[in-house]
């Protein structure tokens, strides 16, 4: 199973600041890159996702930047809020085949009030 490397492991940001989480993947067959948000005691929930044919996707305060040549993608949270405090996982997926979301190790984000 190909790895997805995620950094940083933890991140502390002031309210209103920008949170940036980075991921790098190895499997060039991945064709779908979702980000999941997980609150304590809950399962991960899909936050935003991107396909490799676009370089950026924005949904509200959340933006994914994708660099296909570098095999890297990142999540930017603008105007970070205390309610954004959670663990964030990036993942790579190879759709159209036996599904096996490959997850990064997670980033614990804390947004200070």
């Amino acid at each position, binding site marked *: *199973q190909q790895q*997805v490397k*995620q950094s940083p492991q933890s991140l502390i940001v002031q309210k209103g600041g920008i949170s940036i989480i980075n991921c790098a993947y190895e499997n060039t067959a991945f064709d779908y890159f*979702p980000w*999941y948000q997980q609150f304590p*005691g*809950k*399962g*991960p*929930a*899909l936050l935003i996702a991107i396909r490799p044919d676009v370089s950026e996707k924005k949904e509200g305060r959340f933006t994914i930047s994708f660099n296909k040549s570098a095999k890297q993608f990142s999540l930017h949270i603008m105007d970070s809020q205390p309610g954004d405090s959670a663990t964030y*996982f990036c993942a790579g997926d190879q*759709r*159209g*085949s*036996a*599904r*096996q*979301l*490959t*997850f*990064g*190790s*997670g980033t614990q984000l804390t947004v200070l009030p």
Partner: protein
Amino acid sequence: GAGVSQSPSNKVTEKGKDVELRCDPISGHTALYWYRQSLGQGLEFLIYFQGNSAPDKSGLPSDRFSAERTGGSVSTLTIQRTQQEDSAVYLCASSLGLNTEAFFGQGTRLTVV
């Protein structure tokens, strides 16, 4: 149901005992996945069911782990002769099929003492 339901929410078992974890997927979802989340780690793929196809068992860590899915709906993950390293949160997810979003349950926290 409204979402993926897992039971029990928490399970404490003695080393060497067998445990069964249950997952009720969203009605109509043909794909079902099991993942394991160890403390501070990402999500580790265990097994994947898609319709009537043979399951992808490539992520099961040892022959003590097995899973079945009856009638294309409910799934049970069985861990035999539990070990302390089996302690983790076991997450189940389901999706309509290939190329669709995976929805996660809240997980079962297994503690082997």
